């Protein structure tokens, strides 16, 4: 590596691959899906910046409506002669399969780059395995695997060269997250390397095979039984030739670049008797283990599979040592019901064939074992590899085994010794616990870059994120050292641990992974003298038992003083370098309350420093400053200056802690869930919360993906530093704060004052301001431990103090001093009875606040603009609600383990929620409706049939029930209860049938929920069909105008002039008017709402949509973190959206036509605010002003025209008389 003149860079697998693919292609069709999205994003950004490909043109990068669309576009581009590529993962790859058959069937050269990811089965998972790739085995694509960032870059090039020569399309894959997101120091291939490898003659040949009217031919015929079969076989020579072509390309690559790959690369003893076979990143961990075991004299080996398809038996057999006695073939996928996983079966077949034909060199038939590992990025460690080798030694080893889990159900798993480690003692292992918002990960990326690029050391960074979006924890794993790093697994023995958030100490044992003698850096507002007393017992014990050196810095104070707010990244980074370079001159705590404590009790020079003599602090800091200039320079000099000042101040504030002799704390880590939690929550969920999910056995889990509702209530996250506090004297009880709260942590109740007798002392109440509840008390209560501190409630509060207007009826105050008392108040509040729904006016926001939300404490971002709508939905219809949820933000905060927010009321009723896929959600929800309608029809049939036995009166009441009101539904429920009572006494077989469908007699509300990516793009076909179906389903589109969940890619809902990923130059076209399109059916209820602009209108639209006996569509303005402004002003911004005319509030009610009224009602006034005063509050618009001012001006002008034109059209339509409407809009 060090001999080459090629630049050495530190980047992740996605960038490594994208950089090659971008240079080698002309058309790139993309669609976001984790973890491949960054490849598309980079390609789009480079194109926006005008970066040329190898031939000097800027590739056309186009986002499609789905991966299916992307594959179709690529197919077309290839047929028209372009070099074309795409990037994808998981379900996205599945959507490409139909076109992949076509592309391969037509022998068309292309490379698809896949960050391999598991598939949605019993659950979705964004993490890495080979399930997606394995689903494409039959397409005819060649499958080429990479196991590391360097390999991913190399194979991206090798695949391109090989596809052009072989005409077989290639799928190049590397493990999602483990490789796609691992940051690694690699050698960058140069354009000269690319030129040397890609033969222009073959590019021309590719072009010549393309469709052209200048030399016309037809491709894509339909064939009959007479010829299809033979034609299919006609391609055989190409597949036979392919492996040799790939090997030749690899040889050429070795000549050009120096790294030598083979179709199957063998590592290990030449006389190994036990050999592992696997592909992908797991092979790196196995490689590390094999080298370790070899040094101990074990005769083991590893065969890395690179070209999996076409599978070359000859190359495979030739690569194995003739001494092999046992082969263990590891698959990172699962094929339930199969004889074994695909690679295993291939190996069995290959060995069998070679033996049968006498071409195998083995003395006897090797024993072949198959095993599964690493599904959905489950850790795959050297300890597991060792466990497999140990198993292979046994006389009767387990076949079809699993490794890395404890299978106590079907006993597939192998035992292994988890303490076995191959970590190189010369490799520094540093682990950092950070808060998402504090910049820890970006600082660590930068540190790895600095170490990688300013020293000869190898360097690796891997980052683990939270499943929650608000207050999320990140864990950074950094390795660096003088020897190559193949450790494709998390650090379990760290010699440097940093905790950037003091509050984590009460949640998890951050020092569990610390090695004896390690260095511990803690961000603490407590100084070196007082910090000890604030550490939980477990942490104190770890420090003492492992003899850790402990350092503290008050990074938040330093950041504040430097004007950096909560961004402590550069400060912590400077401290890291000071400690790791060994140049920290300790400023000892002069006095200590702990008497004769010491810094260390043994060797003073142990643990860090690790870079001593390799990188000086001065050089590291200079590199940091340079990086600050590079990262922030383009964002303005003020930012650079602040960060530089922070670096300078950091070291002055770093102090070593004098560690006492004994554990002194009287408190310890918090328990993950309280003892009163349900059994499943205590047994399973609590372990997941505590980060111990890996240790749970198979038997702990439901086999079909079914989980209990209402579990977020048990996970007290305490992430808000400030929470709202109610001023009962000022409050006007309007309910706006309750309505807007994205996490359902502000709730209101009215109740009999007698109930206050048992209230905790600080429990607040005020006289209820309702005529219906005269003499009762009202309480607005905050859940202190569930609040995220977004402050939307404070901004929306209309009640201000007359003497001090900054004081409102609800105000943010520090959480810590309030936690205990407010927890008691919250618990008391929950026990108070809920208001009688039948007494409430559901159309009034004031009354809606009294409805119990059945969606609470989700993992959505603080200040989320979507969740208030979902919460409202559950308040209005939650106890009879079925939700079909498209994949996206709402399915993640709605259903991502460990805990889920949909819950149930005292009667045990609550939303029934499910997520099918991204693209099929409208159809999924329609299916629910069809089932319910069918069951109701069957129930009615049975009711009539059993009427004599049940009683005519009850049957008639059940059949004729008016369920249009809360009261009507309550009555019907009561009737169904009576019915069931009678049915259990009836011997008639129909009675049992009716019993199973009787609940369908109560009106159910089916809601199809998803974001704009689903509704406008990938799911639009289905949504359109469902709207046209006339069936009674309700569709709620949470329109954030961007693919929020995957990180802000453009959708067709993105407005003109806004910057998004895949629209780095500003979206040039206007937002699709989904409401207008839906209106044209004439049979669908359509509403466009914005809670912040008119909350009553929102509530009204929800009620009307639900009541309408046909399809309804509500498009809800949802402010989003991807808009780029302080979300506490989300409601204000919604108001501005409406005032500017950008988001006209409207309802289209088909029933109005029957009443002789125009069905379209414009619910907001003509634009009164210049569009720029709305738009330019948001970074998505202003960043275009900063990056492309001319384009920003032009697009703003066009967007202003869009607003005017649309308003005129709506106004025209809304003002038509019914007769004109019938004529003009052609509705009968």
């Amino acid at each position, binding site marked *: 590596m060090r001999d080459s003149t090629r630049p050495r860079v530190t980047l992740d697998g996605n960038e490594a691959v994208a950089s090659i693919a971008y240079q080698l292609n002309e058309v790139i069709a993309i669609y976001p899906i984790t973890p491949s999205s960054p490849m598309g994003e980079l390609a789009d950004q480079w194109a926006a910046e005008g970066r040329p490909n190898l031939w000097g043109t800027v590739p056309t990068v186009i986002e499609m409506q789905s991966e299916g669309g992307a594959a179709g576009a690529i197919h077309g581009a290839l047929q028209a002669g372009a070099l074309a590529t795409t990037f994808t993962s998981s379900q996205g790859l599945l959507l490409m399969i139909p076109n992949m058959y076509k592309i391969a069937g037509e022998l068309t050269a292309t490379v698809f780059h896949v960050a391999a990811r598991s598939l949605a089965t019993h659950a979705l998972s964004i993490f890495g395995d080979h399930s997606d790739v394995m689903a494409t085995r039959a397409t005819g694509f060649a499958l080429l695997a990479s196991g590391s960032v360097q390999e991913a870059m190399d194979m991206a090039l090798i695949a391109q060269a090989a596809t052009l020569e072989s005409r077989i399309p290639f799928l190049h894959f590397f493990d999602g*997250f483990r490789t796609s997101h691992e940051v690694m120091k690699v050698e960058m291939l140069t354009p000269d390397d690319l030129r040397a490898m890609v033969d222009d003659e073959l590019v021309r040949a590719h072009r010549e095979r393309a469709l052209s009217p200048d030399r016309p031919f037809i491709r894509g015929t339909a064939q009959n039984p007479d010829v299809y079969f033979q034609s299919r076989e006609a391609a055989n020579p190409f597949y036979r030739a392919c492996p040799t072509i790939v090997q030749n390309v690899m040889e050429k690559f070795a000549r050009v670049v120096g790294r030598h790959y083979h179709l199957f690369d063998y590592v290990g003893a030449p006389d190994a008797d036990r050999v592992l076979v696997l592909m992908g990143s797991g092979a790196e961990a196995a490689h590390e283990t094999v080298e370790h075991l070899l040094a101990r004299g074990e005769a083991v080996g590893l065969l890395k599979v690179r070209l999996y398809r076409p599978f070359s038996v000859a190359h495979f057999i030739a690569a194995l040592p003739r001494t092999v006695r046992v082969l263990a073939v590891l698959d990172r996928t699962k094929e339930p019901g199969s004889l074994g996983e695909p690679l295993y079966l291939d190996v069995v077949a290959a060995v069998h064939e070679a033996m049968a034909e006498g071409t195998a060199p083995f003395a006897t038939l090797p024993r072949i074992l198959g095993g599964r590992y690493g599904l959905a990025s489950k850790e795959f460690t050297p300890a597991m590899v060792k466990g497999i080798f140990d198993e292979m030694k046994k006389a009767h080893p387990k076949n079809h085994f699993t490794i890395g889990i404890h299978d106590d159900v079907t006993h597939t798993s192998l035992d292994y010794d988890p303490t076995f480690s191959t970590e190189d003692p010369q490799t520094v292992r540093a682990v950092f616990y950070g808060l998402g918002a504090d910049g820890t990960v970006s600082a660590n990326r930068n540190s790895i870059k600095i170490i990688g690029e300013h020293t000869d050391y190898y360097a690796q960074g891997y980052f683990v994120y939270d499943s929650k979006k608000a207050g999320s924890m990140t864990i950074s794993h950094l390795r660096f050292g003088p020897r190559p790093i193949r450790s494709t697994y998390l650090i379990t023995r760290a010699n440097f641990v940093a905790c950037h958030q003091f509050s984590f100490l009460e949640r998890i044992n951050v020092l569990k992974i610390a090695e004896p003698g390690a260095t511990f850096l803690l961000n603490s507002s407590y100084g070196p003298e007082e910090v000890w007393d604030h550490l939980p017992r477990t942490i104190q014990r770890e420090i003492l038992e492992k003899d850790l050196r402990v350092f503290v810095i008050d990074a938040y104070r330093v950041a504040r003083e430097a004007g950096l707010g909560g961004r402590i990244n550069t400060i912590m980074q400077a401290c890291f370098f000071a400690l790791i370079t060994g140049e920290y001159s300790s400023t000892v705590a002069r006095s200590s309350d702990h008497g004769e404590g010491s810094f260390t009790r043994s060797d003073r020079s142990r643990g860090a420093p690790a870079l001593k003599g390799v990188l000086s602090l001065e050089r590291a800091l200079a590199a940091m400053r340079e990086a600050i200039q590079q990262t922030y320079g*383009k*964002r*303005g000099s003020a*930012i650079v200056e602040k960060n530089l000042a922070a670096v300078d101040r950091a070291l002055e504030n770093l102090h070593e802690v004098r560690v006492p002799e004994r554990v002194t704390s009287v408190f310890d880590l918090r328990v993950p869930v309280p003892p009163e939690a349900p059994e499943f929550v205590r047994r399973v969920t609590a372990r997941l919360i505590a980060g111990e999910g890996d240790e749970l056995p198979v038997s702990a889990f439901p086999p079909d993906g079914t989980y209990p509702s209402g579990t977020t209530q048990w996970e007290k996250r305490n992430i808000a530093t400030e929470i709202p506090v109610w001023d009962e004297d000022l409050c006007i009880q309007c309910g706006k704060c309750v309505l807007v709260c994205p996490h359902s942590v502000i709730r209101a109740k009215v109740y009999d004052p007698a109930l206050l007798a048992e209230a905790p002392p600080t429990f607040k109440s005020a006289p209820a301001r309702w005529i219906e509840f005269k003499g009762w008390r009202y309480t607005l209560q905050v859940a202190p431990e569930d609040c995220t501190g977004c402050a939307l409630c404070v901004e929306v509060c209309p009640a201000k103090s007359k003497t001090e207007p900054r004081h409102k009826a609800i105000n943010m105050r520090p959480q810590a001093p309030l936690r205990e008392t407010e927890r008691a108040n919250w618990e008391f509040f929950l026990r108070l009875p809920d208001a009688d729904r039948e007494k409430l006016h559901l159309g009034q926001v004031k009354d809606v606040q009294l409805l119990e939300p059945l969606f609470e404490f989700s993992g959505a971002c603080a200040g989320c603009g979507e969740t208030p709508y979902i919460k409202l939905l559950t308040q209005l219809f939650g106890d009879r609600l079925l939700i079909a949820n498209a994949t996206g933000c709402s399915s993640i905060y709605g259903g991502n383990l460990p805990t889920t927010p949909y819950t149930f009321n005292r009667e045990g009723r609550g939303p029934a929620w499910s997520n099918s896929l991204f693209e099929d959600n409208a159809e999924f929800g329609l299916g629910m409706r069809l089932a319910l309608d069918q069951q109701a029809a069957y129930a009615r049939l049975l009711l009539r049939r059993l009427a004599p036995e049940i009683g005519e009166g009850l049957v008639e009441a059940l059949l004729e029930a008016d369920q249009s009101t809360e009261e009507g539904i309550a009555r019907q429920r009561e009737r169904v209860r009576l019915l069931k009572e009678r049915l259990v006494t009836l011997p008639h077989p129909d009675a049992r049938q009716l019993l199973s469908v009787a609940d369908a007699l109560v009106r159910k509300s089916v809601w199809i929920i998803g974001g704009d990516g689903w509704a406008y793009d990938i799911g639009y076909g289905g949504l359109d069909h469902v709207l046209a179906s006339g069936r009674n389903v309700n569709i709620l589109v949470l329109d954030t105008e961007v693919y929020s969940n995957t990180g802000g890619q453009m959708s067709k809902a993105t407005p003109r002039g806004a910057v998004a990923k895949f629209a780095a130059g500003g979206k040039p076209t206007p937002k699709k008017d989904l409401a207008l399109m839906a209106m044209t059916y004439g049979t669908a209820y359509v509403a466009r709402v914005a809670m912040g602009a008119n909350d009553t209108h929102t509530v009204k639209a929800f009620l009307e949509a639900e009541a309408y006996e046909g399809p309804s569509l509500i498009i809800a303005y949802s402010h989003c*973190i991807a808009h780029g402004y302080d979300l506490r002003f989300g409601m204000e911004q919604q108001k501005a959206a409406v005032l500017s005319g950008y988001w006209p509030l409207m309802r289209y009610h088909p029933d109005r036509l029957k009443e002789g009224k125009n069905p379209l009602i414009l619910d907001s006034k003509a634009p009164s605010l210049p569009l720029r005063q709305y738009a330019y509050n948001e*970074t998505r618009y*202003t*960043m275009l002003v*900063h990056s492309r001012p001319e384009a920003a001006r032009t697009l703003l002008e066009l967007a202003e025209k869009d607003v005017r034109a649309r308003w005129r059209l709506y106004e025209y339509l809304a003002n038509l008389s019914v007769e004109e409407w019938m004529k003009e809009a052609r509705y009968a």
Partner: protein
Amino acid sequence: MPDLTTTYLGLTLRNPLVISSCPLCESVDNIRRMEEAGAAAVVLHSLFEEQINIESELLDRYLSHGAECYAEALSYFPDMASYKLGPEEYLEHIRRAKAAVGIPIIGSLNGVTPSGWIRYAKAIEEAGADALELNIYYIPTDPNLTSVEVERRYVELVRAVKASVTIPVAVKLGHSFTAFANVARQLDEAGADALVLFNRFYQPDFDVERLEVVPTLTLSRSYELLLRLHWVAILYGRIRADLAVTGGVHTVYDVVKAIMAGANVAMMASALLKYGIGYLRTVLADLRQWMEEHEYASLRQMRGSLSQQRVAEPAAFERANYLRVLSSYAWRLPE
């Protein structure tokens, strides 16, 4: 034809009508129309250092907001290779304005940090501005801050900027000083080439329905001229620096008064915002006509003619004037 030429900041101007820093100056088209309508020079809208800092802080904050928190969304925006933040666009505007018109272009700067003032002053000079106006917009709200300290900061700022650029430097300031004449002298000694009297501060107003303070900006009126006339008339002849009147110049009479008080130029903005750029033609024609009717051959003739040093009753600018106004009201009291 009377001679309307005047000098200001060492520049010879074809007449005394200079466009004051205002939003109209943000467009090169407008500047071209101003030249055509007779403007003698244009002071561009201000480059606000604070604005640059805020914009860059917001961009930085929201580009990193929510980033690196959640595995599926490690960022929410594409981070472009470069952004046009801060002075580039302003400097480009100077260059384009200079290329578009022949009249002098005066840059305007409102800084917050000492380094910012100097950095951007140099940049404005390098972009080709003929002169620089320092728009010192500072409200000393700290009760511990003395007037001496405030004045010292003004003087040091002017000295520092003068030391770093070679183009002439005008200082535009407010009138809220205890001893304004002394402040003017200090700035004069610090090297200011002109004083521009006076800045009009944005005054916060109250929304009593929402109990909020709301920013307002009303256009100037002619009556505001009097304060400017007063101080120009006092300073004329007492300091070396040129004098400019800004705020309340709406009609030919306002222009004539400004010149007679001792101003080198009269600056207009509100009137143009109200009546359009073409209104300059009217004022200019009126000025010519007025001078002809009153038989003034040149502007020089009238400049400073009603300054304190030259009027028959210098006390009219001091306390005596106050007494006389009060008594003049007394005369009009209803019987």
